[in-house]
C-alpha cells in the first residue's frame, strides 16, 4: 500500500487538492456559493506556481463551460466547478460537452436551484442535468470527493467512454465540513491519473476537424446512439479503474455500496452525505436486532440497474430518500429504483421520502422514523412522504 498522509480538510479542499494533483492544462471557472472555495483554493495553487495550469477567470458559468469546451476540443485537459444556478446557466453547454464527447471533469457542489434563492444543499441542480449525457457520481464525504475526482479523470478519458463526469458533493455539509482525508503523494496520484491522449485536437492543423456541425435527421439519431453506447461502456470500464485505485489506496469503490445488506429485510437507498447518517442509524437498529441495511448509490448516471436489481430483489421493503422533487411526478431516485424493480422476481414494498430541500436538516431520528414506517409495513407505494417538513 502507498504511503499516504492524512489531513483535516473540507470537501472543497479535497476537490481542489485532487485538481492540483491532476494539474489540468486549463481551468475556467466562476464563483458561486458553496462551490467558491474550490476555485479559490485552485486559483491560489496557480498564483503560487504550484501548478502550471492556465486559469481563465471567466465572466459567467456559461462562458466557463464554453471555454472548457474550447480548451478540451483544442486538446487540453480542462476542468471547471460549479453549483446550482451556475450549473443551470451552463445547462445548454453541458449537453454540448457530452455530445462532443469531451472528457471534462467537473466538481459540482450541490445546492438548491432557485427560486426562491437558497444557497444550501439539495440535489435539484444536478438532477436537472441527469439526461445531459454526463456521468454523475455522488460522494458521501470528503474522502470520496478526493478519490472519485481522481477516478473521474480516468473514466472520462477512457477511450471507450470519452464522456464528461460530474463529481457531486453536498453543499456546505461536505464542501465546508472538515474531515480527515487520506491524500496520496503527488507522484502516485499523477501516475494514477496519467496523461491525456487528445483525440482529434483542434490545434492539429495538419488534420483539421469540424466540431459541432449541423446534424440533421439523417445522422443525429445515430450520434445519440453512440453516446448511449459510450454510457453503457462505463459499466465495463469503471470496475477496472476502481480496482486499480483499490490496489493503491485500499479503498474499494463500485457503482453502489451495500452496507449491512447481507440479511437485511429493510433497505434504505440514498445519494450523498445522508448515507453517513443512515449508516449510523443502521448500526443502532442492528444493535436492537432489526434487519436493516443501506444501499448507497455512488453512480447515478449511468444508472447501475443490474446491480440494484440483484441487491434489492427479495427484500421486504425498500425506502428511497430523495433530496430533490420532481414536480407532478415521482422523485428522481425513487422513480429510478422503482422502475429497476419492475422486473425482479420478488418485489419489495416501496416507500418514497423527500427530505432536505434547501438545506433542511436530516437527522438520525428522521431516518429512524422512515425505517420504522417500513418495518411496520406502513409504506404505500407512490405515496410521497416527507422527512423534516412542517405540515
Amino acid at each position: 500500500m502507498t504511503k499516504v498522509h492524512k489531513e483535516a480538510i473540507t470537501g472543497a479542499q479535497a476537490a481542489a487538492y485532487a485538481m492540483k494533483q491532476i494539474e489540468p492544462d486549463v481551468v475556467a471557472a466562476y464563483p458561486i456559493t458553496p462551490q467558491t472555495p474550490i476555485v479559490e483554493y485552485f486559483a491560489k495553487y496557480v498564483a503560487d506556481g504550484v501548478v502550471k495550469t492556465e486559469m481563465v477567470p471567466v465572466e459567467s458559468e456559461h462562458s466557463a463551460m464554453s471555454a472548457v469546451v474550447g480548451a478540451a476540443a483544442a486538446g487540453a485537459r480542462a476542468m471547471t466547478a460549479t453549483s446550482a444556478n451556475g450549473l443551470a446557466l451552463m445547462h445548454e453547454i453541458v449537453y454540448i460537452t457530452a455530445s462532443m464527447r469531451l472528457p471534462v471533469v467537473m466538481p459540482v457542489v450541490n445546492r438548491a436551484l432557485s427560486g426562491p434563492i437558497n444557497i444550501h444543499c439539495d440535489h435539484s441542480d444536478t438532477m436537472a442535468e441527469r439526461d445531459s449525457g454526463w456521468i454523475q457520481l455522488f460522494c458521501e464525504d470528503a474522502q470520496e470527493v478526493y478519490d472519485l475526482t481522481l477516478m473521474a479523470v480516468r473514466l472520462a478519458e477512457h477511450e471507450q467512454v470519452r464522456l464528461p463526469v460530474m463529481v457531486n458533493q453536498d453543499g456546505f455539509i461536505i464542501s465546508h465540513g472538515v474531515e480527515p482525508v487520506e491524500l496520496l503523494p503527488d507522484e502516485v496520484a499523477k501516475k494514477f491519473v496519467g496523461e491525456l491522449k487528445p483525440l482529434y485536437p483542434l490545434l492539429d492543423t495538419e488534420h483539421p476537424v469540424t466540431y459541432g456541425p449541423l446534424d440533421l435527421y439523417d445522422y443525429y439519431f445515430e450520434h445519440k446512439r453512440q453516446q448511449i453506447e459510450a454510457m453503457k461502456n462505463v459499466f465495463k470500464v469503471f470496475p477496472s479503474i476502481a480496482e486499480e485505485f483499490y490496489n493503491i489506496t485500499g479503498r474499494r469503490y463500485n457503482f453502489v455500496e451495500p452496507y449491512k445488506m447481507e440479511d437485511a429485510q429493510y433497505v434504505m437507498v440514498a445519494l450523498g452525505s445522508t448515507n453517513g447518517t443512515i449508516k449510523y442509524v443502521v448500526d443502532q437498529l442492528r444493535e436492537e436486532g432489526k434487519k436493516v441495511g443501506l444501499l448507497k448509490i455512488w453512480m447515478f448516471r449511468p444508472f447501475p440497474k443490474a446491480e440494484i436489481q440483484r441487491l434489492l430483489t427479495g427484500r421486504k421493503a425498500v425506502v428511497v430518500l430523495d433530496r430533490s422533487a420532481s414536480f407532478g411526478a415521482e422523485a428522481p431516485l425513487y422513480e429510478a429504483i422503482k422502475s429497476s424493480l419492475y422486473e425482479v422476481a420478488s418485489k419489495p414494498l416501496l416507500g418514497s421520502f423527500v427530505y432536505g430541500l434547501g438545506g433542511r436538516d436530516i437527522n438520525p431520528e428522521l431516518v429512524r422514523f422512515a425505517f420504522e414506517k417500513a418495518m411496520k409495513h406502513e409504506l404505500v407505494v407512490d405515496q410521497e412522504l416527507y422527512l423534516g417538513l412542517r405540515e
Partner: protein
Amino acid sequence: MPLTMKKLAEIFTNKETGLTQGHRMCPGCGAPITVKLALMTAKALGYEPVIGFATGCMEVSSTIYPFTSWSVPYIHNAFENVAATISGVETAYRALKKSGKISADKKYAFFAFGGDGGTYDIGLQSLSGAVERGHKFIYILYDNEGYMNTGNQRSGSTPPGADTTTAPVGKKIPGKVQLKKNIVEIIAGHEYVYAATVAFGEPMDFMSKIEKALSFDGPSFIAALSPCVRYWRVPEDQTVDITKLAIQTKYWPLYEVDRGVYKVTRKPSTFKPVSEFIKTQERFRLLLQRPDAQEIIDEIQHYVDRRWERLLALEEATKDKPIR
C-alpha cells in the same frame, strides 16, 4: 510589400483558402466573402487559422454533416459563446505550448466569427468577457443587420425603417424605430483592444486591418458589413457594390480604434445621400411607401452625418494619445 488582391489570387490558385467549395450559402452572400478574405490574409502571412463560429446562417450552411466546407480546424459550440469558446482554445494553446506538449514554432491565428445577432445581442457578454481578459484572438462580426438563420428577425444592428419579421413595418409602427447599436464603440471601450470596421468593397483596407489584428498582441474586433441577398433583397452580383455605396454614403464609415486612438481609414472626397443606399434594397420598400418615409430617412441622414463628424473629431482628439 503589403498584400494585394493580385498577390492573394496568385497564392491561392493552388492552395485552399480554408473555406472550400460545397457550402450552401446563397450566391452573392457577404458572409463567405468576409470569411475568405480574412482567412486568405492570415494564411498568406504564414498563420494557421483555427476557427470558432457562432450559430447562424453561415454556420448551418457550411457544416451540414457528414460534409464540411472547412479545411481548417473549426468549432461551433452555441449561439452566444463563440468568444468564450475561442478563449478556451487560445488558453489551451498557451498551456500546451508552455508545457511543451505542442511545438512553439507554429503561428496560430485564432478567429471567432459571429453574425450580428450573436455579437450585438446574445453574445455580447461573452465577447466582452473575452476581450476584457485579453485573449489573443480576432473576432470578426459579419454584419447583415438581422437574424438570417431564423428568418429575417430584427437585431440590435437592424437600421430604422428596415422591415423585419419581429419588428415589421406596419400601419401603425414603421418597423424598427431604434438606431443601430454602436458595437465598435462598445468594444473599443475595453481598454486594450484593436477594433475596426471593414467592408470587402474596399479589400486593401480590409486586408491591412486583418494584418494589424494578426500582429496585435491582444484581442481584436473587426466589424464587416456583409449584405444578405435574401433579406436585403439585392441582386447577387451587387453585394460588393452595395458595401462601396455604404462607405460613400457614410452609412458604414471605415475606421479603426487602436487602444483608444481613432483613425478614419477611408475619406471619400464626395459623399452620396444615404437615401441612395436605402433605395438599392427591397428591405426598405415598405418604408419608402409610407407617408413618413422622408422623416425616417432624414433621421438616418442626420445620424450618419453627426457620427462622421464625431469620428473626425475623435481622430483629431485622440491623435498620439493611446490608452496604453
